[in-house]
């Protein structure tokens, strides 16, 4: 365990840690990847971590997160592991190809890499670097911008494993692939999982990514995913987060879209502790579609920060961002959504909307919509609201006999429903719908969190208390 003292900066601590464990980290990887790490650690050295003076980080303070005595697993510590004994998925009728990461490492159920009959490869990124070095080198690090203020460079220096998915041309992967990211550690743990998803032309994939914690211990997940959508590829992506109050998740998701590709992303944060989700979408070629949906339900002193960038670099693309949040107690939320329209991106259609409901005077939402437009023939709009439930609607419901509490729950449920209804997988939509309803009634416990069913002994009840409005 590294010695954490007050005199040393978080950056220096991590840089030293990198140098000390360099040999283990780079062990058997292609040289190009090692070069990428060295470049990344130089960026960390030069730029440091963002602080509250950094654009897009003004309301999210990273510093306290680095002050725990973290453990780092530089080699795969996961024991032979029977997943079904720890949890089972409780989304009825949801048939997925599910893969698990335990403390950042791919869990070898059958094999580290599985090739489906249609040619799709699913498995461990560490193993993929060994078996398919050329494929990995061609893509890895090419869309992740390590110069953007944040922790993408830190992930690039430290990552060792994560999920690798390759979908060949024209293949439609029938079953959704479900990534279950579990942290189970008696000590505070910091992990840097890295995912690489490559979709060849006209392929189709549904990816469900669940972040889950099995204990109430402190953890910091600094994840990064890179997703490449070739011409006419389709991706329906879900990130579902239900973590304990003591866990922190920073996730950088980078997407690159080629001609006529479609991306639909859903970020569903039912409980998050500390969450910073960054999504960068680069629309590199014409006629792409991008939809980014988000829902966050937070209470106590949880903090959730969604930072989105849709970069229109080609003409005739469409993008939409819809993020909605309900905040109780002293919870805080940040939304910074940016639409960038470059000079060549004529005929762009881009919309952005962020709506927040605050249930207490102490809850806080910061919305920072940003438009940067260099083309002249485009349609863009943005809107942000922070408010309370509509008093006219409340009165209307009460005149029909609904008590205040029920009326509020109904309105909050409807508010969240706009995002939930966009979930395309029916069983998942129904399950999320139930979870949202339970969450708003204060009946959700850690035992029926996420899409998992775990054996936690001490159920924690998360409670948005509607009686306080």
């Amino acid at each position, binding site marked *: 365990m590294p010695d954490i003292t007050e005199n040393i900066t978080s950056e220096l601590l991590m840089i030293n840690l990198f140098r000390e464990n360099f040999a283990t980290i780079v062990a058997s990887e292609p040289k190009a990847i090692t070069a990428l790490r060295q470049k990344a650690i130089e960026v960390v050295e030069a730029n440091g971590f963002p602080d509250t003076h950094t654009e897009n980080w003004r309301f999210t303070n990273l510093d306290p997160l680095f002050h725990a005595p973290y453990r780092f697993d530089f080699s795969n510590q996961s024991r032979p592991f029977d997943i079904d004994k720890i949890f089972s998925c409780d989304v009825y009728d949801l048939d997925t190809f599910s893969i698990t990461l335990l403390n950042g490492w791919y869990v070898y159920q059958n094999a580290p890499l599985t090739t489906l009959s249609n040619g799709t490869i699913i498995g461990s990124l560490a193993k993929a670097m060994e078996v398919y070095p050329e494929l990995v080198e061609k893509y890895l690090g090419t869309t992740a911008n390590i110069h953007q203020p944040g922790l993408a460079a830190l992930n690039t220096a430290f990552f060792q494993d994560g999920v690798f998915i390759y979908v060949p041309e024209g293949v439609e992967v029938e079953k959704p692939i479900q990534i279950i990211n579990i942290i189970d550690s008696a000590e505070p743990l910091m992990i840097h999982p890295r995912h690489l998803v490559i979709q060849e032309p006209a392929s189709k994939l549904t990816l469900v990514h669940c972040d889950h914690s099995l204990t109430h211990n402190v953890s910091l997940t600094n994840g990064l995913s890179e997703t490449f959508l070739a011409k006419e590829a389709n991706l329906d992506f879900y990130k579902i987060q239900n973590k304990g109050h003591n866990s922190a998740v920073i996730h950088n998701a980078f997407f690159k879209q080629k001609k006529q590709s479609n991306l639909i992303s859903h970020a569903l944060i039912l409980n998050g502790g500390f969450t910073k989700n960054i999504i960068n979408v680069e629309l590199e070629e014409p006629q792409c579609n991008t939809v980014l949906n988000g829902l966050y339900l937070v209470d106590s002193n949880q903090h959730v920060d969604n930072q989105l960038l849709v970069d229109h670099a080609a003409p005739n693309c469409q993008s939409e961002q819809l993020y909605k949040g309900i905040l109780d107690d002293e919870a805080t939320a940040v939304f910074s959504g940016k639409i960038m329209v470059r000079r060549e991106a004529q005929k762009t259609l881009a919309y952005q909307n962020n709506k927040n409901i605050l249930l207490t005077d102490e809850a806080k939402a910061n919305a920072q919509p940003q438009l940067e437009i260099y083309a002249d023939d485009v349609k863009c709009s943005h809107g942000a609201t922070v408010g309370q439930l509509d008093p006219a609607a409340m*009165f*209307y419901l009460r*005149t*029909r*006999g609904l*008590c205040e509490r029920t*009326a509020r729950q*109904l*309105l909050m449920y*409807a508010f969240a429903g706009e995002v939930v209804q966009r979930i395309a997988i029916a069983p998942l939509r129904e399950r999320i719908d139930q979870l949202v309803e339970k969450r708003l009634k204060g009946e959700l416990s850690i035992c029926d969190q996420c899409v998992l069913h775990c054996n936690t002994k001490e159920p924690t009840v998360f409670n948005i208390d509607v009686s306080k409005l």
Partner: protein
Amino acid sequence: MLSIKNLSVSIYGKPILKNFNLEVNAGEVHAIMGPNGTGKSTLASVIAGRDMFDIDEGQITYMGKDLLAMEPEIRAREGIFLGFQYPVEIPGVSMANFLRTAINERRKYHDLDPLSGAEFLKLMEERKKLVEIHSKLTNRSVNEGFSGGEKKKNEIFQMAMLEPKLAILDETDSGLDIDALKVVANGVNKLRKPENATIVITHYQRLLEHIIPDFVHVLFDGRIVKSGGKDLALDLEEKGYEWIRKEAGIEEPM
């Protein structure tokens, strides 16, 4: 059934109802008429329990109980229904879910078992027929994207579902074409029972050709200045409101 005595109501210190009095008995239909801005809608809102108004003086007794002490939902469960002048759109809340919740909360209040899904659907079909609503309004979100006429029909449908003792219809005729007006009026007439009462708030005599009132009251400057039978509405239609203003000695507004 309803007894309003010396009621004075203001908003932000501006008086709206001034020493207002009204008695409504079971089986009666009262029409409250008057020009814009005389306090008609305020009266409806105060009876239903909207809390944006200040009650400066007076009492409202409903079925022997102090109405002003009750929360809006308690008034509703005790049988008061307000048909809104501007029904509120509530995206994401389905009509069926909303009405079933409303009916079951009311039943719980009266110590009755909740309606099952099947019972509820049956009731809904029956009441749709009664008020002649054939559209699929009930599959949609509450009032969302409804036309003006659909919204008003939907108010009458809700009334049919909730079976109030005292229904207050606030300008239910405004913005309706003649066919929609007939649907609304037929609904109200079919739901009339000797043990129930209705207060119809309206601007024009038109609706009162279809819903025949027992009493017509003219509201001016926050109080009733003239009451009469159904013929009073015809007089108003013919002569306008000006003669009442003069008769009551009220100054013209500046």
